[in-house]
């Protein structure tokens, strides 16, 4: 089964450890290795990307590493892919946000 790792117990997102095809069930492992959730992927989720472990309202903090990595820019459903389309940085305002090539 496809897996996702919750790095800190406080996290409301987990990172998938391989590419997950749409419709596939994901086993979410806590830091202690316990399966805490088995959400279904709504869409393809690439390796290293995140899924939500709870329903999140717009403006809710996104927690990874036990810390806030950003804010939900719209409501997010449990199991949904979490990335720039539904999260914004709390440090860099969205209006200023741009992507720089490496």
């Amino acid at each position, binding site marked *: 089964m496809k897996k996702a790792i919750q790095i800190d117990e406080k996290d409301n997102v987990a990172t998938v450890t391989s590419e997950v095809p749409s419709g596939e069930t994901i086993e979410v492992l806590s*830091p202690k290795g316990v399966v805490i959730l088995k959400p279904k992927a709504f869409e393809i989720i690439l390796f290293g990307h995140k899924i939500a472990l709870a329903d999140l309202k717009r403006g809710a903090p996104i927690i990874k590493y036990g810390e806030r990595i950003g804010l939900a820019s719209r409501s997010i459903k449990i199991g949904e892919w979490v990335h720039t389309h539904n*999260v914004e940085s*709390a*440090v860099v305002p969205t209006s200023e946000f*741009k992507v*720089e090539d*490496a």
Partner: protein
Amino acid sequence: MTEFYGYERPDRSVGVRNHLLVIAPIDCSFEPARRITDQVENAVAVTQHHGCGVNEMVVNTLIGVGCNPNVAGVLLLGLGCETLTSEILADGIVKTGKPVQTVICQNEGGTLKSIEKGAHILKKMTQQTAETRREPFPLSKLTLAIECGGSDATSGLAANPATGIAADMLIDEGGTVIFSEPQEMTGTQNILAKRAVNEQIAEAIRRMIDHEEQRMKAMGIDSRFITKGNLDGGLTTIEEKSLGAIRKGGTRSIQGVLENNWSRLDKPSHGGLWLQDGTERDIPSVTHMVAAGAQVVAFTTGRGSTTGHAIAPVFKITGNSETYARMTDNMDINAGAVIDGSETLQVVGERIFNTIIEVASGKKTKTEALGYRDFAVFARDRIAEHLLGFC
């Protein structure tokens, strides 16, 4: 109570290696210094490339390295006409009570005579210091430096959080942990400041990261943006990227910011987690943490770094199983099982902790087995720092 086996020095610090260090205060005298070490076991030569004027950051670092407990004795091999004299360094190192001697090329009459004299001195020092035996010590005598380099998408997921667990374990048993690379802390000012033991240290953390962001801005880099490669790899914000890097230092309270500037090079005054205001360049970063007293270095990597250090054992942890398999010469620990779900972060973290103790007690790391002697000194540009208003 976990213990490690190390060598006690006259100042009661504890080394995990028994190196004899030949310091060329300026690179002009490095070649004879290096040749001396060819002739003596456990001897290693280092120098710096910032000129022979007195740059206090360079002076403080070289003194710090000479004082590191992994060094049993020091030979200064000077050219003779440098402003950064061997005496300046000797005065700073001799306070530790370890043997310190000096050979000056221009006084001895050239390379061959200097090598001969230096080799004799080191041979005597070897015999003198070889009598020291490893004895058990509590982890309060151990300082771990944590560095990362050649990161990839697995770093923030496996190697860094697992190393963070080991850092927490070491601190909980009285040990000391240092991590640096303020450039990688961008955007986490408030997150790290919240973990400071008091408001003064919280302020020092914010100032350190702010200064680093201003330096990057002066170079034309906006540190708050992340690259397309980061985004494609799944990193969403600068906070997430930086947190993935700083997680390697664990989750404990921050005891202080170790300054490294023209007036001083701070060392941790007690156990716990410390940040160093250093550099993101791997080899000089490790050197600076070693100058602050770190005896062992845990180095996380994704794509695979090969670097070691002249006087501190460096061991590599990768979360990328492919890198581990492909670069078996260089990788010590595979944290990749976290990715395939066959091991938890906790289990890998405990393995890293055990490795820290084993390496501290004498187990050779892959970089040591390869005879790596990486060394570089980091010094900021004083003119630029002055123009930025930082000094």
